[in-house]
């Protein structure tokens, strides 16, 4: 098993009801595995599924990226700075 840190922002943070949490996942899990678990754990996140982008260790990533122990997976709703 590996442990990864899930981090939620803005609308995703509100929907998840938490800023961050730890998931234990099988080795060779991908970003997609972590996302599925997040949506399963927090059904309120589901409406954001299409609009959310994911950052793996602070870099925008694809769903098929493989996870390693200690990785940070952040769910990023559409952004607007300035």
């Amino acid at each position, binding site marked *: 098993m590996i442990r990864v840190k899930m*981090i939620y*922002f*803005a*609308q995703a*943070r509100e929907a998840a009801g938490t800023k961050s949490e730890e998931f234990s996942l099988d080795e060779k899990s991908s970003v997609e595995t972590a996302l599925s678990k997040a949506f399963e754990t927090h059904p309120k996140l589901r409406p954001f599924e299409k*609009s959310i*982008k994911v*950052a*793996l*260790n*602070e*870099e*925008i*990533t694809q769903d098929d*990226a*493989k996870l390693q122990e200690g990785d940070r997976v*952040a769910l*990023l*709703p*559409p*952004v*607007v*700075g*300035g």
Partner: protein
Amino acid sequence: MKSRISRKPIDPAKALESVMDEDAGGIVLFVGTIRNQTKGKEVKGLEYEVYRPMAELQIARLEEEIRKRWPVKSIRLIHREGRLKVGEVSVVVAVSAMHREEAFEAARYAIDRIKESFPIWKREKFKGGRYAWVKGTPIQSYPASDRAISDSQTNSRETVRPRTRSLVEA
């Protein structure tokens, strides 16, 4: 004064001063502030949420990219985090260059990039204390693929990322 995400009020005059240089004949200072209305509705304030380590990494990269594209002297990029009142400064971009063209272009580029590719969210506070998220756009990966991409991005999972450029420890 360094480029950064700031939890404290930003003084644009200080940012301006920090990019002044005897070699620089042109300085552009962009200051974003909190407006008192949105689509005719009164706004009482704004709250910014920032994925700080990622945003600070991107600030450093944006500075680096601007330096490659324009012959600028100095750049300061500062964005607020947290709760702001109407009239407060939310973002400052200061660029000095030998000539005005590159200063204007670089500053314009910087503020556009900050709006579309930085992990920042904001919600407006209305009368009675009600908050509503401002509609955003899906975050653009940065640096985007049409620009020069270093090895660290093309092989993201296997490469040690250039942590030293992060301003997290600063």
